[in-house]
């Protein structure tokens, strides 16, 4: 079965400093991996996705993630945090089974301090 672990429930950074949100996955298959962002009281929005093409994936708003099979990781990074990046971030892996098309992590809340 597929699973995903987000290693930090809360990350706090200063504006202008780098962001690192960590995600490890477990999958019996070649996984597809996603990062979604949820701003307060909003629905989820896709940031980026990996689907077995290039291992370094670039997303919206300057975010990127690198798929590392040897480490079973898919960490999300951004060189310089902006106040508008404050949100909840979810790492997601494909379920590849009939009733769990996506498996969500528990989320990491990113705070950005001015």
């Amino acid at each position, binding site marked *: 079965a597929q699973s995903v672990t987000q290693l930090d*429930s809360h990350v706090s950074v200063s504006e202008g400093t780098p962001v690192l949100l960590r995600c490890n996955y477990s999958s019996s298959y070649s996984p*597809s991996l*996603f990062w*979604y962002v949820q701003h307060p*009281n*909003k*629905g*989820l*929005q*896709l940031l980026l*996705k990996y*689907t077995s093409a290039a291992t370094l994936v670039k997303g919206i708003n300057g975010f990127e993630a690198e798929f590392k099979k040897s480490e079973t990781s898919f960490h999300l990074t951004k060189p310089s945090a902006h106040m508008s990046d404050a949100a909840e971030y*979810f790492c*997601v892996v*494909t*379920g*590849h089974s*009939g*009733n*769990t*098309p*996506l498996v*969500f*992590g*528990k*989320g990491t809340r990113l705070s950005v301090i001015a």
Partner: protein
Amino acid sequence: NAGVTQTPKFRILKIGQSMTLQCAQDMNHNYMYWYRQDPGMGLKLIYYSVGAGITDKGEVPNGYNVSRSTTEDFPLRLELAAPSQTSVYFCASSYVTGGQLGTDTQYFGPGTRLTVL
């Protein structure tokens, strides 16, 4: 193009009441999904549909029912509301072509916050 819309935004129910959460999409997506999000947790899949007339259970289907009579609409029915169903409910849709299930991008609605007292 409104994307995925959900109504109502908020609702308070008494134990034992029933209600329907509405979801509609105007992107001609074939797949639609219902999730619930509990505090501090990721989303859990309740039901999904691969097209009009076809639905299937997700991870947490107990206490819910769905139907999909049209491509656009995917309502979620709670028959006998219980406090355990207090949650935020998200509807999503995606376009999936043959052999690409699991690589699709899901588009989410803004959510319905439901409280059962």
